[in-house]
């Protein structure tokens, strides 16, 4: 660059930049261009400036293109992420719905075996016992038909399907009880005593009496009442209050059944209605097996003398003066 060149317009840095950037008005451009035609050095300087600006612009475009590509890639991966998350969410919803459907289906099944579910789900070691729906399907006065007690068992077992027809015999029994309403305190005993002789010879269905106890979570007998029960049992029989009749059921899964007569004082107040026709039953799990307690004024003995399995869901319990055929829907194994 010489002294004479400094007099040329291209030596003005701002003007040179503006010229290359086309930031000069048209009239001035033509003047400057006219000068460039005469000045080689000036043309070279303009060319250098143009290349410099072109390089910067090209760099800017490349950088922008790189950033744009990065942005698009990020957007795509975000979109994919969203799709991925949506797919997972959809899968979770489908699985959850399926689980709900299955649970809903089994809830219907559960309703059918409500007692069983209650026992399985709510029994805790501290409160194993509970009032259950069981059916005393036959009570007989043993003294009036001792011989019959053994012979009748197989016949009941044979007729097992009839046990399920509880509605019919319950209705009939209630009608019978209404007719004989003047027998108040020992309704069952009187009724059973009257009907027993005809039990074998005549229509058995008519003689059956069914009683439902309510499903109630009862509290376990108090320590005091248990002690009293124990004392009483020892005094009367010289044995423990619980006659452990370990007769394992034919089904190996079924536990042994233990039967005892319970003290009416142990009944919740709401259940002490004094109705002798009602036998409340209480089912408990014990280390020895299933403990079944009968609460009824119709049973005077505190311990059972014999238990006989007549079906997977039915037993005959023999007290000194009574025989009780007892049925639990679904069977013993199912309950415990």
């Amino acid at each position, binding site marked *: 660059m010489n002294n004479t060149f400094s007099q040329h317009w291209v030596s003005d*840095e701002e003007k040179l*930049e503006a010229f290359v*950037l086309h*930031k000069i008005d048209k009239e001035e451009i033509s003047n400057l261009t006219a000068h460039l035609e005469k000045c080689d050095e000036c043309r070279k300087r303009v*060319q*250098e400036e*143009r*290349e*410099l*600006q*072109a*390089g*910067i*612009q*090209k*760099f*800017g*475009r*490349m*950088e*922008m*293109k790189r*950033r*744009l*590509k990065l*942005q*698009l890639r990020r*957007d795509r991966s975000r979109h994919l992420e969203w799709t991925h998350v949506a797919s997972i969410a959809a899968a979770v919803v489908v699985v959850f719905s399926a689980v709900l459907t299955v649970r809903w289906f089994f809830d219907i099944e559960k309703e059918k075996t409500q007692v069983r579910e209650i026992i399985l789900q709510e029994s805790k070691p501290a409160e194993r016992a509970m009032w259950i729906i069981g059916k005393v399907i036959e009570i007989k006065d043993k003294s009036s038909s001792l011989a019959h007690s053994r012979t009748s068992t197989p016949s009941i077992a044979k007729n097992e399907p009839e046990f399920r027809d509880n509605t019919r015999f319950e209705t009939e029994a209630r009608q019978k009880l209404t007719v004989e309403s003047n027998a108040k305190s020992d309704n069952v005993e009187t009724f059973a005593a009257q009907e027993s002789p005809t039990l074998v010879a005549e229509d058995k269905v008519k003689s059956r009496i069914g009683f439902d106890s309510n499903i109630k979570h009862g509290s376990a007998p108090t320590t005091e009442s248990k002690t009293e029960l124990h004392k009483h049992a020892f005094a009367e029989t010289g044995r423990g209050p619980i006659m452990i009749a370990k007769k394992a059921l034919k089904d190996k899964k079924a536990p042994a059944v233990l039967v005892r007569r319970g003290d009416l004082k142990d009944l919740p107040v709401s259940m002490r209605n004094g109705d002798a026709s009602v036998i409340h039953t209480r089912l408990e799990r014990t280390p020895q097996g299933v403990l079944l307690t009968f609460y009824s004024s119709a049973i005077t003995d505190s311990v059972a003398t014999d238990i006989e399995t007549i079906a997977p869901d039915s037993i005959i319990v023999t007290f000194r003066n009574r025989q009780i055929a007892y049925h639990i829907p679904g069977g013993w194994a199912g309950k415990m």
Partner: protein
Amino acid sequence: MQTPLFFLNNDSKLLDALRNGDEHALAELFQKNRRPITALIQRNQGTEDDAEDILQEALIVLWEKIRSGSFEYQSKLSTYIYATAKNIWFRQLARRRRELPATNEAFEVASEDTTPQEELEENERVTAVQYAMEQIGNPCRDILLLYYWEEQSMEEIALKLGFANADTVKSKKYQCKKALEKLVKKALGGTQ
């Protein structure tokens, strides 16, 4: 600037974003224009990759126009982008047919009366400037880009980069330009 009302609502937000230097608007425009541009390029011997590349270049042309204030809003943005992409692609196709080395068609700056030899030398020097731009650090890079590429005024650059005033930017820009020229000379081996 003409602003036909019927597509003002669709484009105005994007235009505002681009004017404010929001590059996310470019990504949005890319997605909106991807299908028609891909169809155009594929109908004319191109591939999907070509289409992406051409669309990006068209968007950058739009960016430059808007940032430098030379964009005239006379048609929908999508129409402008389509026309620009088509122009870039056909020029590139013509160049391919002549089997000339690939250059950045949209941004070619060589003088009209240059020989191929001169053009190659010119490209080499331009590449050297690009290389120098990669070497130079900030704030020089940003100042030079904002001034020479986005054609922002000194006041705008001062505001954007946090300089005290336009004079400070002007002084800094001068220093940066000299530093860049040195780097270019170094890159060209002192031949310039």
